[in-house]
């Protein structure tokens, strides 16, 4: 491997000569490793492994975990690039990046991020973004372990040693479930929840549908009281026309935010909704890299940016979106609905982000089967709050130990499509 890289460098140097029109592009595979010999660390990446892990054989969202190994005894890092519904594509993409990494210095995470993103030429959508995310997190885990510090200290934190404030999902099937959830929240010290709106929405909606959506949100507020913050996720199910009405109708309920009131591609469409109400707007979970958050922030559309550490480009990119938002006085509340590695990674960024608001985890007040598996893997109740906060890990790196063997019970069941829903007339609906 080393030999091939070395020859690559020699080739690149000699190919520098004649080029009139940019046609003599010479691959410089070796530049990364060789050029930094005098200023890098002695640590070298020796292997990049990627695992698909399905908690149930038919899971539509298998975890994608990345493990990066080094030439230092036992020094390795874990990251997560889970992309719901597209597991095999991310696994393949991580493997494509192996050549970028093997033989190079894992300390240079910013350099590797730039190389993976820029040298992918077409830039990154969710598949490449998630692959970069998994690799980036694993590099930060290695960096923290090599420097003997938890990642949030490398990022200049923590804001609060007691941990980072979090929220659970409400997960109520009916109003009757709410009193128990409220009691449980008080017992556990939970200060924030998120719910959604029932059903699927057409381009324009009926009086009955609008009233029922507003009533469902009012029921959540009534059932949980005004003592907790509540965010409502529209999940981009609504058009700007329908969302504008709902967002305005729920103003008296003093929500913490309404999330993804319309799909993410058209910032001006979302701006139209945001301008018509005082209800704060949260969005960003489907965005990759700080580049794609710029317009939302610049145009003042978003109140709370929700980029996801498993898609945006890992710790490096989540930190940067936070920096962009901070300069505009915008809060950050990262999305997290995947596995425990990304969950742990996002806590580190939260703890070092001055404009951090609250951290999601797709769990409820009750410990579910998924959380039990996480506990079994990491040896502690990962992503469970204590007094309303996710505790900060003390160990170096991302703060956990994990063995590959842990996944044996959960073999990769392959990529399966996420939910596909349709309207009454058979046309495609957002969910």
């Amino acid at each position: 491997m080393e030999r091939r890289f070395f020859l690559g460098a020699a080739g690149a140097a000699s190919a520098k000569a004649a080029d009139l029109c940019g046609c003599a592009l010479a691959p410089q595979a070796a530049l990364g490793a060789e050029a930094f010999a005098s200023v890098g660390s002695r640590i070298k990446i020796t292997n990049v492994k990627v695992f698909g892990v399905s908690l149930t054989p038919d899971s539509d969202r298998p975890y994608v975990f990345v493990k990066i190994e080094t030439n230092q005894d036992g020094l390795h890092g874990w990251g997560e690039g889970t992309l719901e519904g597209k597991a095999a594509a991310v696994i393949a993409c991580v493997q494509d990046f192996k050549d970028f990494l093997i033989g190079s210095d894992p300390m240079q995470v910013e350099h590797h991020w730039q190389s993976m993103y820029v040298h992918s030429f077409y830039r990154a959508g969710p598949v490449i973004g998630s692959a970069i995310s998994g690799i980036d997190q694993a590099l930060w885990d290695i960096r923290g372990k090599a420097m003997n510090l938890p990642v949030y200290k490398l990022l200049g934190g923590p804001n609060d040693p007691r941990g980072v404030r979090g929220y659970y999902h409400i997960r109520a099937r009916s109003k009757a479930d709410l009193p128990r959830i409220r009691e449980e929240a008080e017992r556990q010290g939970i200060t924030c929840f998120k719910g959604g709106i029932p059903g699927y929405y057409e381009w324009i909606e009926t009086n009955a549908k609008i009233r029922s959506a507003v009533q469902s949100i009012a029921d959540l507020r009534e059932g949980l009281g005004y003592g907790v913050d509540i965010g409502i996720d529209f999940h981009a199910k609504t058009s700007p026309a329908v969302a504008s009405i709902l967002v305005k109708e729920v103003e008296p309920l003093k929500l913490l935010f309404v999330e993804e009131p319309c799909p993410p591609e058209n910032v001006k469409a979302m701006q139209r909704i945001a301008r018509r109400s005082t209800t704060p707007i949260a969005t960003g979970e489907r965005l990759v890299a700080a580049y794609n958050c710029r317009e939302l922030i610049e145009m003042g559309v978003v109140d709370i940016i929700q980029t996801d550490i498993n898609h945006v480009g890992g710790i490096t990119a989540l930190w940067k979106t936070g920096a962009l938002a901070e300069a505009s006085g915008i809060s950050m509340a990262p999305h997290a609905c995947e596995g425990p590695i990304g969950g742990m990674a996002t806590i580190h960024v939260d703890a070092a982000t001055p404009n951090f608001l609250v951290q999601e985890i797709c769990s409820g007040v009750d410990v579910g089967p998924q959380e039990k598996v996480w506990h079994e893997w990491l040896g502690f109740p990962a992503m469970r709050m204590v007094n309303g906060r996710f505790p900060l890990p003390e160990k170096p790196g991302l703060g956990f130990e994990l063995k590959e063997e842990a996944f044996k019970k959960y073999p990769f069941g392959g990529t399966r499509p996420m939910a596909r829903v349709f309207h009454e007339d058979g046309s495609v609906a957002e969910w």
Partner: protein
Amino acid sequence: MPTALLARRLRLASQPVPFATGPNSITEGRHWRTPRFSVVRLRTQSGLVGYGECAPIDQGAFDAGFALIKGREATSFEVIRTILSGPVEAAINTALLDISGKIAKVPIYQLLGGPTRNKARAMATLDDPKQLAALQKQGYRAFRVPINQANAAARLKELQQAAGDGIDFVLDGGAKLTPGQASTVAAAIERLHPLWFDEPCPLANIRAVSKITDENVTPLGFGRSCTKTLEFQELLREQVVDVLRPDLATMSVCSIRRAAAIAETYYTAVAPFNTGGRIATAAGLHLAAAIPNFYVLDIPPGTATVKDGFAALPTAPGLGIEIKEGDWA
């Protein structure tokens, strides 16, 4: 701001947030003032020492800043950034990074995710054209040249001829021209291709400044009067800047790093302005190797070794330079 969010913010702001303490807590601070800059030294409970530099400040400003951060862990440099303001923030930030690098046993740029490059392009100030040959001999290949409205194009042509190929110039307007005058200068030098036109006018009215960029393609550098990240954000949004010029004497490495993250999304370069001593230059070199969109650093002669137009990066932990207290050059 929406009322619910504002209410939450106010509620949170009224609660004091505790902080952790331990061997890395800052226990002692000292400040020296020289005619050109101030130097601060912080010491941790464990005995690690870090240095930082900023524009000259009074002892009172240092004492007030130090009182706000005493006891906090050196590694909580981003939290401390939000607690302090003014030049003292820049000096304390560098000192905290120096200590944090020593705790982690790596140079600051590795702590921050670098290196993104293996050397940093250097620039010297050319106050007197007669110094050109000597500075070229010292290894510089880029120069910042003060100009006025009348002499800009002629001065640049003369220098280009005298210097020969491979030497480049930044013309420095020193924020003394009006936007209209600056636009005339930008037009006159457009086809001579200086690296950029620095501080062509004061940043009073950004709409007026945009006349220069509307009428010319000469790249513009702005920022040495800016002290907050959000000021750079505004310049980028209004599309009047091609090179961000935050001053290391008044903005911290961590603040500039944030401005750089914003600039990255506008495909715009960062070239820290620096007229300080060895500590500020070292801080600039670490910053250069931590961000992807660095272009060039002002390196006052004698504050770092320059060869073939570039300065080498320090490789020892923290700032990675030897410091003799009292010998503040």
